[in-house]
């Protein structure tokens, strides 16, 4: 086990964990997005409510959800340890610094973007997950199929300007985080190749645009068109 603790305590090992948990969260986002498109079905939420029930009762999903919580927590904790380690590597800063000349803004602000996403995540979980799973105080109605009507809660929440603005800010932060993070995860794993790296970079940009845009379409749709 000596080699393992040595690996995860090294700066490269920490980055490896950031990369692996990051990629895991990236795959989760796609699944979350695809499932949530049930909101657009126009059946007063029957499909969406059935999907929500499936997600909260299926034993396999249940197991994976604990992996997901662990993934998020690990990603955050290691990011914090790296942040302080990196800060301590330069105790005296520069008087004049022209970082724009050599690197992108998002690559230099992954911690800030991550914290914005984390703040958004708390709002998001409090809005729905907490209510649905832990009975946060909201009285759920029962829909025509006999499922708890989380769709009605989504509509109610997304009708508030606070939700609209906080979700959009969270998703813009997610766009920038993914814009750097997607390719960066592959680079950290050492998956670099002159044939495939341009493809990974293009895919990363496409992903960073499409996934947050897909999520943003939901509160925007409810707020303006429902």
């Amino acid at each position, binding site marked *: 086990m000596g*080699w393992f603790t*040595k*690996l995860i305590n*090294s*700066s*490269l*090992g*920490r*980055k*490896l964990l950031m990369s692996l948990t990051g990629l895991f969260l990236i795959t989760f986002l796609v699944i979350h997005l695809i499932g949530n498109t049930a909101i657009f079905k126009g059946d007063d939420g029957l499909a969406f409510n059935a999907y929500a029930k499936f997600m909260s009762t299926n034993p396999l999903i249940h197991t994976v959800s604990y992996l997901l919580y662990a993934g998020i927590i690990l990603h955050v904790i290691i990011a914090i340890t*790296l942040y302080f*380690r*990196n800060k*301590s*590597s*330069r*105790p*005296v*800063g*520069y*008087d*004049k*610094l*022209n*970082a724009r*000349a*050599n*690197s*992108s803004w998002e*690559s*230099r602000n*992954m911690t800030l973007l991550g914290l914005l996403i984390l703040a958004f995540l708390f709002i998001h979980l409090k809005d729905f997950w907490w209510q649905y799973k832990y009975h946060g105080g909201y009285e759920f109605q029962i829909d025509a199929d006999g499922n708890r009507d989380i769709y009605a809660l989504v509509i109610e929440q997304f009708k508030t300007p606070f939700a609209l603005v906080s979700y959009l800010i969270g998703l813009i932060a997610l766009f920038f985080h993914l814009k*750097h993070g997607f*390719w*960066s995860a592959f*680079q*950290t*794993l*050492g*998956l*670099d190749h*002159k044939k495939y*790296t341009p493809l990974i970079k293009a895919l990363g940009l496409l992903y960073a645009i499409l996934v947050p845009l897909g999520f943003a379409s939901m509160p925007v749709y409810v707020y303006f068109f429902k």
Partner: protein
Amino acid sequence: MEKERNYTLKIWRQPNAQSKGEFKTYEVKNISTGTSFLEMLDILNEELTLKGEDPVYFDHDCREGICGMCSLFINGRPHGPDEEVTVCQMHMRMFEDGSTITIEPWRARAFPVIKDLVVDRSAFDRIIQAGGFISVNTGVTTDANAILISKENADLAMDAAACIGCGACVAACKNASAMLFVSAKVSQLALLPQGQSERKRRALAMVEQMDKEGFGACTNTGACSAECPKGIDLSNIARLNREYFTASVS
């Protein structure tokens, strides 16, 4: 001939490692555009010496862009605004007449200031000592082409070997990470047959030493490569990651 230029220099002065240090402002006049940046500092130092003041200490050696000694952080960038050159190869025509030029030392915990603009970069030497070498028997010179090496690998190894160890990568990185330096040194040997016997040991030992010296982790911002006077590519960092992880798990 173009008009000679005048500059205001804002230079970090620090008598020794223990003292606090501060910026001091100097004026230099009638600098020709063909003067190199270090020659401009020489002119300043001559004036300071004649006035009986302590000259500005800065590292330099070959002044041909190949030794890696010069190390100035100029107007917010290591080696200044020019692309892929060291400070000694940069000319004063890069700076507008009448402008203020801020000159700072490399800033990193692993590179403590010795005096003024001179920093201690022996952390790099200790990383090399940890594994940046190959063991060969001395004796008769072996035939140059006895071991066949593919053109691709020879080129990649040569590109990595262009690293002069100046530390601009560390200076540029927001985390003061030494990943580009270490990755170039690991790559130049990992790509060649002569580097195979110590390959795993090397990657593990050099990364361990890098961490021990207090350099930060890599965020893949690419600042190191963008500021590298030798244009060392980021793909070397991916290779180091591969080398380190495979060496760790195997």
